[in-house]
């Protein structure tokens, strides 16, 4: 399975998860982005590890304001009171968990079993280091969701992912 298909699968899964869980719409890739991640003030990042037929890490990075909005949407709250109702990382961690849970069977098939670890917060610099990993199985998508820049990254063991995905 080539990188383009993995990227398209990740994009499709992200669209479904964010729409269903957070009523958030992924902007069309053709639209001119309003801002980039690095120009967006405080960035929150979360990661999780998975093991199974192939092993790896998934991560998400998004502005704090975006996390507040999706958290507000998830709880159907008014946005001026939302911040006190949840840990600021919680919406991103949970959405990452849902994306990973949908992505792995979409890539490998539902017969394969994966163990997905609990999501944890990471510093932005650590996230940036992860994105600099240039192995062939790296899948990075750079999106705009509700006009906010959001990145999702999957790094997998290059040999094992190819073996599973080719099978």
């Amino acid at each position, binding site marked *: 399975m080539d990188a383009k298909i993995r990227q398209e699968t990740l994009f499709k899964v992200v669209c479904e998860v964010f729409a269903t869980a957070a009523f958030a719409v992924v902007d069309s890739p053709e639209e001119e982005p309003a801002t980039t991640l690095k120009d967006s003030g405080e960035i929150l990042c979360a990661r999780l590890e998975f093991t199974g037929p192939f092993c790896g890490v998934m991560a998400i990075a998004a502005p704090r304001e975006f996390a507040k909005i999706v958290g507000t949407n998830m*709880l159907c709250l008014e946005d001026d009171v939302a911040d006190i109702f949840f840990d600021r990382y*919680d919406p991103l961690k949970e959405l990452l968990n849902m994306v990973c*849970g949908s992505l792995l069977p979409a890539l490998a098939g539902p017969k394969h079993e994966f163990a997905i670890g609990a999501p944890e917060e990471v510093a932005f610099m650590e996230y940036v280091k992860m994105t600099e990993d240039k192995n062939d199985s790296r899948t990075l998508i750079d999106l705009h969701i509700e006009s906010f820049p959001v990145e999702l990254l999957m790094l997998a063991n290059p040999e094992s992912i190819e073996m599973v995905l080719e099978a």
Partner: protein
Amino acid sequence: MAFNILIVDDSQIIRKIIHRTILMANVPIGLLWNASNGLEALQVINNEWVDLVLLDLNMPVMTGSDFVEKMSEKGLIDKVPVIVVSTEGSESKVERLLEKGARAFVRKPFTPEDIRKTVREVLGEWDGCEDTAGDSF
């Protein structure tokens, strides 16, 4: 009749969403407990009367699968219905949990209607269960 409900998820936001969904579904709630992992949930199960558990799988300290295993060992899994609410995508893993005694599985991301329907299937009918706010979900 009111049901004592235990919601087990390491995400505070998901616990709140499930609670809200249950309220919207007009499930009569007696007592409600929250636990952020399987170990905390076991402590509740050991000390309180619980009518329904809504259980995540991927949690730190003790996973939902281990919690189901412990409930099975203690002979509680047939007495306290467990609905697994998880991102789990593996068919075989879900089948194993159902074989172990979990009553139902709801995949995240879920809609409030998914939770409402499943809770109703597992708990059966209750007074006022027809008066749900289904259209406003």
